[in-house]
Structures are given as structure tokens and as C-alpha cells.
């Protein structure tokens, strides 16, 4: 059980990657990229977690109380917001692809040589 969160992160990464490779629709592919990215959240939070520690907020607990790693949480926080805009950008690309070629299937796109 001790290594389960790390295994979950690896599994999310691989399952997302499989989705990207086997995808037949660009929108599905973009969501799979999101799944791959969520594995980084799991890994970062798992590394920052400490058994028995509180959140790194020292409003009603004194300084020196064992707290989880604030550095990885800060990394993750910006990551979440940035991911949404990057997904929006990728979806905009997908819309343009559909406008130009009338398909969202990556395999058919290759046939068009576009």
C-alpha cells in the first residue's frame, strides 16, 4: 500500500498515453492528454504528502507544526489553471482541423496529407 499513489500516477500516465495512441477522434485525444497531465498532479501530491501532517496553512496552528510540502502544492496549483487553457488551445486547433478537412479522425487526416 505504501507505493500505491505512485503506482496510480504511473497507471494514469500509461492509460492516457494508450488513449492518445489508439484515439480515433481529436477531441478524445485532447482529453487523453488531460489524463496524462493529471498523473503529474497525483505524483506531485503523493511526493509532498506526509503522514500525520497538516496543510501548510499556519493560521490557527503554530509555526513548526508538521505540514505537508508546500512547494509541490504550489507547482500543482498553477499547473491546473494552465492545463485548462492549454486544453482550450488544443480544442481550438481541433475546430480548425474540422473546418479545413471535415474530419476529426487522426487516421483520415493522414490520408489527406494536410
Amino acid at each position, binding site marked *: *500500500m*505504501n*507505493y*500505491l*499513489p*505512485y503506482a496510480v500516477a*504511473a497507471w494514469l*500516465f*500509461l492509460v492516457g*498515453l*494508450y488513449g492518445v*495512441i*489508439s484515439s480515433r477522434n481529436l477531441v478524445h485525444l485532447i482529453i487523453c492528454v488531460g489524463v496524462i497531465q493529471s498523473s503529474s498532479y497525483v505524483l506531485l501530491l*503523493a*511526493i*509532498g*504528502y*506526509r*503522514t500525520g501532517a497538516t*496543510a*501548510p*496553512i*499556519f*493560521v490557527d496552528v503554530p*509555526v*513548526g507544526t508538521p*505540514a*505537508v*510540502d*508546500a*512547494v509541490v*502544492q*504550489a507547482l500543482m*496549483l*498553477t*499547473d*491546473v*489553471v*494552465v492545463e*485548462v*487553457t*492549454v486544453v*482550450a*488551445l488544443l480544442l*481550438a*486547433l481541433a*475546430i*480548425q482541423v474540422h473546418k479545413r478537412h471535415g474530419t476529426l479522425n487522426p*487516421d483520415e487526416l493522414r490520408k489527406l496529407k494536410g
Partner: protein
Amino acid sequence: MTRRIRQKFFLFSAAALALCFVWGYRDLPPFGQVTSIYADKVNAITVPQRHITDAVTAVNFDIRGFDTLGEEFILFTSVMGVVLLMRRTKDEPAGDHEDKVQGRNVPPVSDAVRVTTLLLIAPTILFGWYIVAHGQVTPGGGFQGGVILSSAALLLYLCGTYPKFRGAAAPRLIEIAEAVGAAGYIIVGGACVALGGMFLENLLPLGKTGTLTSGGTVPFINLAVGLEVSAGFVLILLVYLEELMEEKES
């Protein structure tokens, strides 16, 4: 490469990648027992040295402030990319802002939804700014508050029609707000240089711990980020709604 070969190739590489994961994890301490010298240092110095009670905000906007500037600009360029990609080209005539997609019989929004969303808009905006302003005290800050603020725009769309929403949202103003938010971060950093310090060095009075004015430059950076994130998300929302409304009958 056919689908079959590609999948076989994936299985082979995935197995190799999984082995790399195992190899990389081997020396990691078990879950919950990872120790990091940075974590201990950050948790120890944020209150005495920065007067910030939320260590995550202290890392994001003070200790690691320059990195967050970069991340904020990833967001900025992504939003610009979306706007650029979705702009109307010459062969796409301007729509009349009506929902024309066929086979998508959207039922009219019920009065209950309209009234509820209308009532929710003001509290959402207030809550958004509350989260932005209290970033240095409790969990929150520009990124989280900005997203909440942008959801107020979505509520505005739900309680009215699209043309009215577009009129109220004033895209030009939103674009300016986004630019001001992005520039604000740099201006705060530059002001520190002007005051004789380093870029983004926290030189302002740190204030009383646990109050709105604590943290020196952090509240100002949070305001700038909050403005940028909310404006960026509203811009994405506007661009996508515009696309939906202008989709031609096929």
C-alpha cells in the same frame, strides 16, 4: 503505420516505460514519509520572514515568484492562441449572433434558472475577489479567485441571451483587463527594481501577519494574476460561444 502495428509498438514501449517507472520509484521513500529540505525551510520561514500564513501562496508569489511569472505567461499565450485560432476569417461571414445549428433544439432557459443565476452573479463576484484578496492568509489567491470570477460571466450567459451577454461582457474591456493583469505582474517586479532591490524581491512593508495587507508585494501580484486569469477565461468563453453561434447551417 497501421493501427495494429502501432498498438503493438505501444505495448512494447509501455512495458519499457513501466519498467522505468519502477526503476525511478525504487529509491523513493514510501508514501507519506518523503522528506524534503525545501518543504521544511518553506514551512519554517513563511510566517516569520514573509508574514504570510499560507505557505503555498508564499512559494508561488514570493519565493518562486519568477517561475510563476513564466507560468502566468503560458496561460496568457494559450489564451492569445485560442483567440487567434478562432478568429473569423474572410470566407466566414459574420453571423447574427443567433444559435443556428440544426438538430440541436435547445430548450429555452427556464425562469427558475434565470432568476437563480441572476441572484448568484453578485455573490460569485464578491467571493471571487475575496479569494483573490485573501491568498496570503488562507488557501486562495489569484489563480483560484480568477477562475471563480470568470464563472460569474458564465452565470451571466445562463441568465440572458447571447447578444445581451456579449454586450455586457464587453470583449474589448476584457482584452484590456487581461493585458493589464499580465503587465501588472511585471510592473510589481519592476517596481521592486526601482526601489533598489532585485526583480520581484519583496521590499514592501510586510504588514501584520494574518491581515489583508500582509505579505508585501504578494497581494498586489495576486490582484494582477486574478485579473489576468479571470479575463483570460472569460475571453476563451466568449470566443467559444461566438464559434457556436456562428456555426453555419450545413
